[in-house]
């Protein structure tokens, strides 16, 4: 379970997260949507400890994790902009992360095959295309089969085929009972992958609940319509 209590983050005078309270039960697949600059990435990074919250607490499975690091063992993270050491080859990168994680069993080979990265293994990260870098990020986040998976705009930059492969993998993970969080601007992706929705605007959570309820509430057929409506209401 991921729990945020009174999370605040200011960058100078700018408030990015504004007293955020959130509880995400284990095994839930949650889609996070919101306009650009609404604090989605900052929220995710606070959970990971990449961003240090100005105020507030983060709990993972009931354990306070501010300034802790061991808990990241249970999290797989795929960042929005995939940046990796440029001089490492793909193979070296995987090996390096395996060493860092203490040579735990990993599903690396299966994932490499799944994403079709076999031909890229000997190439340096610098020479990889953006899409292939994303795929490397996907493998890195999934290879130790963590309980919690966090994807920040995972399919931006992936071609349709890879995107389908990625979603297929995420569905498998969901069925295996993993907690999944993902942000995206593609509503159909959330419909496909998530059961719950978090709508966040200017660092505040405006909606958190099952997707079906939201659709009913807004009398919409598709998520896209419902979310667009919410955004319009916010802007008004």
């Amino acid at each position, binding site marked *: 379970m991921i729990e945020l209590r009174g999370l605040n983050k200011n*960058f100078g005078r700018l408030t990015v997260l504004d007293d955020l309270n959130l509880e995400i039960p284990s095994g839930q697949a949650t889609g996070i949507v919101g306009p650009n600059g609404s604090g989605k990435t900052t929220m995710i*990074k606070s959970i*990971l*400890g*990449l*961003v*240090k919250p100005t105020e507030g607490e983060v709990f993972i499975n009931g354990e306070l994790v501010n300034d802790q*690091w*061991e*808990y*990241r*063992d249970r*999290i797989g*993270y795929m*960042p929005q902009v995939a*940046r*990796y*050491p*440029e*001089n*490492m080859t793909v193979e070296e990168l995987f090996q*390096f*992360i395996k*060493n*860092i*994680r*203490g040579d735990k069993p990993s599903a690396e080979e299966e994932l490499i095959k799944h994403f079709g990265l076999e031909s890229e293994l000997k190439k340096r990260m610098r020479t990889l295309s953006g899409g292939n870098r994303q795929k490397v990020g996907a493998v890195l986040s999934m290879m130790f089969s963590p309980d919690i998976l966090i994807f920040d705009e995972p399919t931006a930059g992936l071609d349709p085929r890879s995107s389908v492969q990625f979603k297929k993998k995420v569905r498998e993970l969901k069925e295996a009972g993993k907690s999944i969080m993902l942000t995206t601007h593609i509503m159909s992706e959330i419909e496909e992958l998530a059961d719950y929705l978090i709508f966040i605007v200017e660092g505040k959570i405006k909606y958190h609940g099952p997707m079906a309820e939201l659709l009913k509430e807004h009398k919409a057929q598709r998520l896209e319509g419902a979310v667009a409506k919410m955004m319009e209401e916010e802007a008004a």
Partner: protein
Amino acid sequence: MKVLTILNYQWKDLVRGKWIFGYALIYLLITDALIRFGGAGPKALLSISNVMLLLIPLVSMIYGALYLYQSREFTELLLAQPLNRKMLFWGLYGGLAIPLSAAFILGTLLPMLYNGMFFGEQVISILLLLGLGLILTLLFTGIGFWMGLAFFEDRIKGLGFALVGWLFLAVLYDGLVLLAIFVLGDYPIEKPMLALTMLNPIDLARIIVLLEFDISALMGYTGAVFNRFFGSFYGMITAIFSMLIWLALPLIGATRRFRKMDF
């Protein structure tokens, strides 16, 4: 264990860059040339320390900041892993500071060894010189890291401040001290001058060198004051002690900053 994994990668990357060998080669060539032309006496050692006092701070500080910028992807990747930030910091720092120190020590020591200089009476002086170089490398790499972290989003500013910082400490500072002496010469300014000297690690290192070689004529104003005030032995102890405090400062500052930073 994890620190070793990080160090191992960093060193491989440095070796791949080949840049570190160039740095060692500079010391090798300079030391060799100075010994060839000046003989294997204290004169050569003094010239070597003069080169060292300028070059080490410059290279360590600039490359410290630059290196942090270059390792940005690496840092971001590792921060999302189950790793302690403190451990990551020392991995990054050791990844640069250790090879830089090794390059200086090997580059300087090698010509001394094959010229038979190391096995004379000057062993203590040579060891002191190498030790000073080591502390200067660690210290200025730390300052470079600190600058790099303080201006993590703005490389130009970070490198600019590192460069200006070097110019100030290595070149301008002495000028300013002289100016102060010139202007305030009628007052008893020995003690404030002493304090001023301790505020600059390059000056401190220079004084240690001068005290060791006992060249009062070359000691300059601050050196002479230092010598008179503390005597050679206590002067040396005080200077070395201040140096170690200096070494701790940027490292404490940089680790603190690194631990609180957002990525």
